[in-house]
């Protein structure tokens, strides 16, 4: 599949441009309060929209995914680290599915 390499290059080029342009071009401060605020909320809106409801179909069973989601939210509210939350959710899914098989 040589097409795969073109896909990878397109992805990498777009992503790198997004990362590099502000760092290299913006030397001053963005003044528009709306754009500043908009950009501030972007990560939360994007990651939330990508997480839910997709997370409910991320494992073999709806129930294990739902419990994994709730546990991840609980751990995150408690301020646990990235690694702890990600691995905690995986572990819970694994254990729940032991009972579902």
């Amino acid at each position, binding site marked *: 599949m040589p097409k795969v*390499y073109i896909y990878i290059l397109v992805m990498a080029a*777009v992503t790198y441009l997004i990362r590099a342009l502000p760092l290299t071009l913006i030397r001053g401060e963005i003044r528009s309060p709306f754009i500043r605020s908009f950009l501030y*909320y972007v990560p939360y*809106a994007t990651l939330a929209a990508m*997480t839910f409801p997709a997370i409910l179909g991320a494992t073999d069973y709806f129930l294990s995914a739902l419990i994994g989601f709730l546990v991840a939210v609980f751990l995150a509210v408690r301020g646990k680290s*990235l*690694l702890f939350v990600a691995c905690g*959710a995986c572990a819970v899914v694994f254990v729940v599915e032991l009972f579902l098989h």
Partner: protein
Amino acid sequence: MVSNAMDNRQWFKKGLRNGLPICMGYFAVSFAFGIQAVEGGLTVFQAGMLSLMNVTSAGQFAGLSVIIAGGSYVEMAVLQLIINLRYLLMSTALSQKLTSRTGTAARLGIAYGVTDEIFGVSVLTEGELNPFYSYGLILISVLGWTGGTVFGAAAGAILPESAISALGIALYGMFIAIIIPPATKSRPVLIAVLGGMILSTAAAYAPLIRELSDGMRIIIITVLVASACALIWPVKEKEEA
């Protein structure tokens, strides 16, 4: 200058140390990515190359679905642009932590490693950002990200199905760990998070809208939610960073 070189070396080591938790978290998530990439028809080499050249969690998972579905290159480009648009903000914020002494080459190097996690760690340093601190963070993190992908792609097949199923939730666990703690401290952020989740659930079932690709739905929801929040709750200087 000798003293400057020593400084840089210490910053680099500090970056390696502070990047270790990111490295381990990335390994778990990219392990799942490697498995999915091979299941989708990519080779181990292609999966590793994809991770090394992109270093984006969400962007890669979404991009993989475009590759598997045989979508157009334009769709891929727009999808990456929107999903990774948040790096524009992070890159902008990091640009404010550099001085004119930081040349273009160093800026291009720092840009390679602008991710949610590396940004989060590097933007919290006191005062000016030393590029070598970023290099340390980036090196160890990318090692975990690419290494996890290659391991997942190569060894994922020997894992039992139950383990693969469990790893499927790793990426989302990481997202939750990023968005939930700020949401417990700021009401507008909480509403942005809930708004994103509710709208994307509605969009997944609404007639016509559910026919759109995942990427397009996320684009529309992000623009709607972030615009509404920005209009209702403009962010004051000190809340950012």
